[in-house]
């Protein structure tokens, strides 16, 4: 298990903003390479790991998607020694002032997101949240050094280092969705010793945070019979106590709603209960805002299941996760795959 924790820490220390995932993809490639038969890339840069099943061909396919991209910032302008920024993916600008970041310029430069004092901002802003267009990144470099090293379009990622906290808790940025990548990696590890009939396609998809481009295109290319998507969901904590939030360490949240095929929900629930893995029912009245929304409607349609890991402070650099929830998710998924009978698709009736 410490192996998975160190993979996860490496994943959340590596840059991979939406549209620019190659660095983190290399880390995942290294981790998956001993666990799968083949690795290749989609046209848009998603990573596909193929592990063949034990049955004779033709074998049905299951696709497991975990998006590898993370939210972050981008340099949109340079004013003297200061950098103007915009966001990639959904970031509440209220968390930005005072955040340490890395500017991926001609070299990686440490930087600080700063809010100018109110008297240098429009009067209407006084005391109120400052929109991202008025914030800057200060790298501490002089105007000339910035002109030499930084270009408009350079990526800016959060620099918050992983913090291990009491009770097997990990804090850091990009746990959305590297925690799920770690869970999928754990699942692949378990499948080294668990036999499975179906072909397994592990997909680390790109651009989920902006367009679901990876999910649509990998779904189209692979055309699986089933898809399971692993993402994160809200954990209870300050500011979140609604029906759609679950306590840390309460196990994976199984999705239920129009995006999810009800047979898949029932199957996962059954297995979780057999294995005594705690879980929650994650009710999703409309969309899930994950790759599941895209995969369900790709080509002829793919019956999809969403499993979510509870996460506090989503989309901030201080996301918090319980490591036990990651290991439980990985195990549940491995057992589901191992138990999948070849004739399962005939059970997939919506009624």
């Amino acid at each position: 298990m410490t192996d998975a924790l160190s993979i996860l820490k490496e994943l959340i220390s590596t840059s991979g903003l939406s549209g620019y995932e190659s660095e983190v993809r290399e880390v995942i490639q290294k981790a998956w390479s001993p666990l799968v038969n083949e690795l290749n890339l989609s046209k848009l840069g998603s990573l596909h790991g193929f592990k063949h099943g034990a049955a004779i061909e033709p074998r049905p396919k299951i696709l497991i998607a975990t998006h590898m991209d993370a939210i972050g910032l981008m340099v949109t302008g340079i004013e003297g020694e200061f950098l103007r920024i915009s966001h990639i993916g959904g970031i509440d600008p209220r968390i930005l002032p005072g955040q340490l970041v890395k500017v991926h310029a001609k070299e990686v430069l440490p930087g600080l997101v700063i809010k100018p004092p109110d008297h240098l901002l429009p009067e209407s802003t006084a005391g109120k949240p400052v929109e991202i267009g008025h914030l800057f990144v200060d790298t501490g470099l002089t105007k000339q050094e910035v002109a030499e090293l930084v270009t408009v379009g350079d990526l800016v990622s959060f620099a918050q280092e992983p913090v291990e906290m009491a009770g097997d808790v990990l804090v850091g940025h990009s746990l959305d969705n590297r925690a799920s990548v770690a869970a999928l990696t754990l699942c692949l590890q378990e499948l080294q010793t668990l036999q499975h009939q179906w072909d397994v396609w592990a997909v680390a998809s790109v651009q989920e945070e902006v367009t679901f481009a990876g999910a649509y295109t990998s779904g189209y290319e692979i055309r699986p019979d089933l898809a399971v998507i692993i993402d994160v969901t809200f954990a209870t904590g300050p500011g979140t106590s609604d029906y759609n939030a679950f306590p840390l360490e309460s196990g994976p949240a199984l999705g239920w709603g129009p995006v999810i095929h009800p047979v898949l929900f029932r199957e996962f629930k059954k297995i979780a209960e057999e294995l005594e893995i705690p879980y929650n029912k994650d009710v999703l009245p409309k969309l899930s805002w994950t790759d599941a929304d895209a995969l369900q409607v790709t080509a002829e349609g793919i019956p999809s299941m969403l499993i979510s890991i509870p996460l506090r402070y989503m989309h901030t650099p201080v996301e918090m996760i319980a490591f036990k929830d990651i290991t439980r998710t990985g195990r549940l998924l491995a057992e589901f795959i191992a138990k999948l009978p070849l004739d399962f698709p005939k059970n997939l009736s919506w009624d």
Partner: protein
Amino acid sequence: MKSLIKKLAETAGPSGREDQIRALIRSEIEPYSQEIQTDSLGNLIARKGEKSKDGVRIMLSAHMDEIGVIATHVDQNGFVRFTGIGMVYPKYCLGARVRFLNGTQGVINSEHTSDAKEQIPLEKMFIDVGVNKAAECPVKPGDMAVFDGPFIDLGHKVIAKSLDNRLGIAILVELIKKIDLTPNEIYFVFTVQEEMRKSGATTAAYAVQPDIGIVVDVTATGDTPDSIRMDVGLGKGPAIKISDQGMISDQRIVKWMKDTAKKSGIPYQLEILEKGSTDAMVIQLSRAGVPSGVVSIPCRYIHSPSEMVNFQDLQQSFELTHALISNPVSLK
């Protein structure tokens, strides 16, 4: 190219009714196309070039449609109520002249408001076509109109309606005429309905199945008084799109575009657009994915009756696109 743009700009083609502009484009390019057809949504697709060993299939795309207005009701006094087709900004409509597809001309104005600060919405506006009662009105609900106004040549700069995206069209038309030797198979796609939901590009990409997508469209600038904050401005060359509201350009394509511009001695700018997107957004998601990018022509006052471009930027955008499609594509 100026006279071509004038002809294109003075032709109407609101989203969903692109037939007039399509006919004009087709007459310009048919003699130069190895294959040409109009598909079921009205996209005009022409092919030139054969795919060689180190060539790829390129979908080179520019949208034919422009924003417009559509009549919703003719009141008893002959005033025409309307709504927008595509992103129509109310502030640009007040006092604007329009021309319906059937030739009727009119002017937009609004109900009176006592609050000088109020942003008047389209629902409070109407088109006056100069008649006195409904029976005399040559316009009926469902009729479409576009902004009306002459093309103005200021020398270095040019003013016209619908430079979004007649500029892109002009570049594609000139390219298909001029392109000679290329290792690539190039599909020149003039799409419909980009200003609505980009259905044209979606279906065209599905049919063409390109290896890469290049879109030529306009982008906004940040160089007018108290404008939106943006690095792009007139007179600094074509803009290579890094990202916009709907997509992140494939980084390999961005690098290839930058390298090509540098090698060809063409100045360029880098574009990050906060609001708005292009056909590339949907081309990128087609089937198993199509790495895509955009050559953006900087343009002021987009979606107003009088858009403005720097003519040298347009020529350099042409040169960049020419260099991109004439050579082997290297994506590393």
